[in-house]
């Protein structure tokens, strides 16, 4: 079985500091990591590889340093990677990103499954997976929480939806986007790390494949960001102390009055 896992490199949410004055985020010099939600798709791929046998190709589009994210995925058990890096890819929205990823997947000799994370923690859209399925014209299961059966020509999954789980059978090839429940990511092994260092990661540019130039990067993106602002945190910030019996009574009276005023009780 051939599995493709597109991953994104994002700023590390653990290293992000909050400005104590404005309560907003300070991103300067923040380290880049594998999108934390892509660790689940990587682990699902590795689990399927162990159970059914598979070769896993990781794809990442981003600056040259995104090669590090691919190496991390390889150290977790993936086999090889492709870095999509070119100034022409810059400024892509989900439409252009998914086009570029889909064209790359189409150029591979074969694929049975493409596994996406639920969303990237920086853009927060969760659109690239479903968009890619549409470009590939391959069946999609989003928000997959478990894979129940894989045969030569099909896969059964459960999707986590509002109020429960929807069970689907998809013919292969198929595209999945997965949620945290799907797998428990494991740390890279020492041998994995060695292999990751040795593995050569080819870089594809806009010239590497017959991409339609008009579909790439900012030029190919139907959406434009026209304004960005950092919202001031405007919470009321009332703090009351309930450190003894009397304090508790007073604090709760205040809380109940507050909730009543807001029509919450």
């Amino acid at each position, binding site marked *: 079985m051939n599995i493709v896992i597109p991953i994104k490199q994002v700023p590390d949410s653990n290293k992000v500091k909050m400005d104590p004055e404005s309560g907003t985020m300070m991103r300067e010099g923040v380290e880049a990591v594998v999108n934390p939600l892509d660790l689940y798709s990587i682990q699902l791929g590795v689990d399927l590889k162990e159970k059914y046998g598979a070769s896993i190709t990781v794809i990442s589009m981003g600056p040259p340093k995104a090669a590090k994210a691919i190496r991390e995925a390889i150290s977790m058990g993936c086999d090889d990677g492709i870095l999509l890096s070119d100034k022409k890819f810059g400024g892509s929205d989900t439409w252009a990103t998914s086009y570029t990823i889909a064209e790359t997947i189409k150029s591979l000799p074969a694929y049975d499954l493409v596994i996406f994370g639920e969303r990237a923690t920086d853009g927060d859209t969760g659109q690239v997976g479903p968009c890619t399925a549409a470009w590939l014209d391959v069946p*999609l299961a989003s928000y997959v929480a478990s894979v129940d059966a894989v045969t030569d020509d099909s896969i059964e999954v*459960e999707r986590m*939806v509002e109020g429960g789980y929807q069970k689907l059978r998809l013919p292969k090839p198929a595209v999945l986007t997965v949620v945290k429940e799907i797998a428990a990511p494991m740390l890279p092994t020492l041998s994995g790390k060695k292999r990751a260092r040795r593995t050569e990661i080819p870089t594809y540019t806009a010239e590497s494949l017959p991409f339609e130039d008009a579909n790439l990067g900012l030029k190919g993106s139907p959406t434009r960001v026209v304004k960005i602002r950092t919202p001031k945190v405007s919470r009321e910030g009332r703090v009351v102390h309930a450190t003894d019996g009397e304090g508790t009574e007073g604090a709760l009276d205040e809380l109940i009055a507050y909730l009543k005023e807001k029509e919450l009780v």
Partner: protein
Amino acid sequence: MSFVWTLAEQDGTSLKGVSFELLARGRTLADKLETKLASVVIGGKLSEEQLQELIHRGADEVYYIKNDALDDFVVETYSRILVKLIEQYDPHTILAAATTTGRTLMPHVSIGADTGLTADCTDLDIDPETGQLLQTRPAIGGNIMATIKTPYKRPQMATVRPKSSRPLEADTTREGKIIEVPFEESFVDGRVEVLGYRHNEDEDVDIQEAEMVISGGRGLKKGDNFEIIRKLATRFDAAIGASRDAVDRGWISYPHQVGLSGKTISPKLYFACGISGSIQQLAGIKTAETIVAVNNDPEANIHKIADFSIVGDLFEVLPRLIEKLDENGKKATGGKS
């Protein structure tokens, strides 16, 4: 002028509440553009009265397409239908809910219809100069607000965060047209088979649809203590949320998780109990209307971001809060509860 559309959601036999929230958004946009508002309904066994409610709550027209084959959401089929309707009617704007359905279907449609899509918007407006849709959404864990346009392609499409707007009051004097779109066999993609549906056993898990969410974290000390949260949730008629630490310890299931690797929610009230207020937890609650917290560590970050917080031991504060609310309730009803 082409119309503004909303995509209604149904659960088989009724329309979901979020369908009416979308109409409130759509109504404002359609009025600014001086055009009509239509709602598209795919699948479900819906009655004339149920469809009329869409009109009473803001729609001028309803396009309804029904067939047994459309009752379950299958993205390939729904996408084919929506793309076809777009080609036929050429709408100006389409709003869908940022639910698992909307966030699966609309990206698929954005490729089929060759246009842009903005995810999970919390604010929508019309640019007075160009008449273009201004789509504002939180990004990077709610730490920035980005405003996005789709300048050249049509329709302009956005998914809208549930609970980020209130439905309009039903106006039963409003009149509109219900148009039945004929079903064609060719709409059904047929590659994917729906094998079934498993409902969550606990009912208080729909944290994205809930008006109020009471949430527990590691401060609860053990899983059994979620009972305190459950009692409080019953008292408030709230859904139950949790931090990742509580979920990872197996105290409660993952669908309850709030935050960066869980759900993003916008309830009227978010009540955090024994939660420290990490960056990743906050990412899920930035758009909550009111945040209340109980935490016994005066230095905990949650006190800095809550609207109202109590420094205290949740094991003392919460049971007493329930008692006091009950006493209060009795007083208000003259003791006849």
